[in-house]
């Protein structure tokens, strides 16, 4: 065991990568699923052990191939990325059992093994972005996760899945290229790619090369914002989520955008924030303005959306707005609220999309008008949907309330009462779009389409129920969300100038 422990950061990436390779060779969907399940269930132990270690003894620095940073690639785990690693791996582990039936239902036999192969590659990329301390390495992992998610979306049953995947590919590649341009400018300025080293070297380049630094900051911001679907760069997201296979939507909505948000936080607070006086630039104002726009405009679009998957996709854009709002506030309670919302939103959106996947599995439709009265036919699934929906609104007693509470305190700390009001008001729009669905599924008479529907088998039902209970549990016990996030935020803000 002692031989393995020091190599946990590398194993975090190597295990899913090898799993993906193997899954590509296995031609049978069932075997590939078993492999993906095994890998997904190992990951939380590795990330959990690393988070535990960082909480006890401070950041872990792993030198790939034994090369000292800043020359070699360094994998660096501190509380912030340990937190994100645990989130991504736990979501993967919890939702994996759902995949077997859902994927077998939606994807033809010959392509199922490839689906799991792409999922494992995507997992590799996401964990890689999070674990690495090297900005160029992060680009490579960003593209691994993006390319595999284009394929995951393209495997959707409708032909529009191909179109959405293509549009996502164009937008995603522009985003990644902007990111590389930003990294290139940083490399020209500092001659380094290691995050800690760049931060130290940029310090001496400021303010003499301030124009180049601001250009790098702008390129990285736009590039990563395209990946995390910050309003108005979210155009790829609604169609991508709507036409992807149900399970792929669950996985991508819960993890992919969250990891991109992590990368943005890392750049803002661990690289630029340390090196330059960020208050001289209007970053905070821009981010907050875009976040508020996302919270309102995307929520309003969700109110008028008939396709439930698209509705939840627009709701994701709005919820990402809350997370970036925390980044914009950049004070202890605000950023804590943002980080906590990464976890809370991931868990409840996964629960909602899983419930939609279960509905599609039973009723073969996700159009709201055809789903009247399905609550009476699939009571447990729709109960989970309802709980997670209340989380989305931010009702007290759910985890969504906790994150919005901290965001509001962050705004009050800055005396921005208008913003507090806006956070409340946008929650009311969420109440409208969630309430509209709840009214149709619970109060109306079942239509013929849903007459034969019933709750799905346990392998699909249990993940939904587990995530819905997590929404309630994290609304009461906040030690593992607010506690750890607060710890991470202290470290982030401590380095700020």
């Amino acid at each position, binding site marked *: 065991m002692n031989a393995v422990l020091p190599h946990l950061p590398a194993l975090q990436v190597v295990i899913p990568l090898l799993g993906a390779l193997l899954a590509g060779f296995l031609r049978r969907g069932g075997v590939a699923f078993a492999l993906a399940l095994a890998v997904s269930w190992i990951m939380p132990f590795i990330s959990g052990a690393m988070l535990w270690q960082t909480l006890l003894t401070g950041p872990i620095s792993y030198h790939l191939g034994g090369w000292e940073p800043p020359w070699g690639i360094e994998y660096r785990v501190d509380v912030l990325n340990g937190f994100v690693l645990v989130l991504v791996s736990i979501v993967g582990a919890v939702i994996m059992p759902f995949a077997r039936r859902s994927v077998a239902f939606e994807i033809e036999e010959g392509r199922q093994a490839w689906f799991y192969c792409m999922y494992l590659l995507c997992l590799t990329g996401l964990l890689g972005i999070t674990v690495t301390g090297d900005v*160029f390495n992060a*680009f*490579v992992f960003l*593209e691994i996760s993006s*390319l595999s998610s*284009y*394929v995951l979306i*393209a495997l959707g049953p409708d*032909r*529009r899945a*191909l*179109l959405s*995947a*293509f549009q996502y*590919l*164009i937008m995603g*590649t*522009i985003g*990644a*290229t902007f990111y*590389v*341009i930003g990294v*290139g400018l940083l*490399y*020209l300025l500092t*001659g380094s*790619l290691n995050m800690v080293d760049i931060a130290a070297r940029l310090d001496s380049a400021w303010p003499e090369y301030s124009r180049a630094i601001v250009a790098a900051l702008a390129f990285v911001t736009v590039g990563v914002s395209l990946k995390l679907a910050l309003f108005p760069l979210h155009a790829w997201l609604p169609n991508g989520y709507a036409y992807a296979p149900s399970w792929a939507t669950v996985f991508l909505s819960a993890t992919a955008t969250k990891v991109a948000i992590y990368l943005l936080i890392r750049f803002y607070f661990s690289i630029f924030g340390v090196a330059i006086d960020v208050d001289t630039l209007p970053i905070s104002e821009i981010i907050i303005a875009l976040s508020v726009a996302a919270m309102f405009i995307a929520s309003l679009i969700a109110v008028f959306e008939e396709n439930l998957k698209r509705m939840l996709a627009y709701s994701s854009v709005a919820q990402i707005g809350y997370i970036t709002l925390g980044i914009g506030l950049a004070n202890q309670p605000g950023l804590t609220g943002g980080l906590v919302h990464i976890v809370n939103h991931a868990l409840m959106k996964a629960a909602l999309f899983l419930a939609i996947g279960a509905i599609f599995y039973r009723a073969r439709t996700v159009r709201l008008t055809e789903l009247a009265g399905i609550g009476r036919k699939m009571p447990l699934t729709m109960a989970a949907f309802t709980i997670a929906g209340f989380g989305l609104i931010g009702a007290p007693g759910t985890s969504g309330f906790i994150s919005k509470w901290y965001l509001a305190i962050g705004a009050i700390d800055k005396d921005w009462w208008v913003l507090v009001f806006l956070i409340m008001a946008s929650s009311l729009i969420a109440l409208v779009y969630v309430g509209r669905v709840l009214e149709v599924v619970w109060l109306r008479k079942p239509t013929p389409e849903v007459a034969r529907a019933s709750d799905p088998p346990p392998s699909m039902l249990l993940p939904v129920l587990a995530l819905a209970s997590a929404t309630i549990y994290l609304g009461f016990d906040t030690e593992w969300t607010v506690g750890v996030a607060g710890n991470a935020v202290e470290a982030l803000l401590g380095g700020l100038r």
Partner: protein
Amino acid sequence: MSMLMSLIEHYNYVITIFLMMTGLYIVVARGNMVKKLVGLSIFQTSVYLLYIEPGKIIGGTAPIIDPAFTVYSNPLPHVLILTAIVVGVATLALGLALVVRINEAYGTVEEDEIFERDRNT
């Protein structure tokens, strides 16, 4: 005048930025998916230049320590760009594969015609 001189002195950056804008413009302005991918490829290629140009120092040699040389070029950008080229090739291949599938499903690769066909169904 000094602006012009500085542009001429840094003509390599001018070329890079010109390519970058050309590529991005093609992606935005063209409705044909293959042309979009060509534009995307040009856009990515311009970034290879952005990295590689500053790595070369005139009169510098490969970084092999030898008493005869004192000026060395930086080899790291080349290594980075080799990786970026692989990523670019993978993206282009996947994009073209998607275009082939789209052509099979819709019978066209023009974006406006595809939207038209989706609206009719």
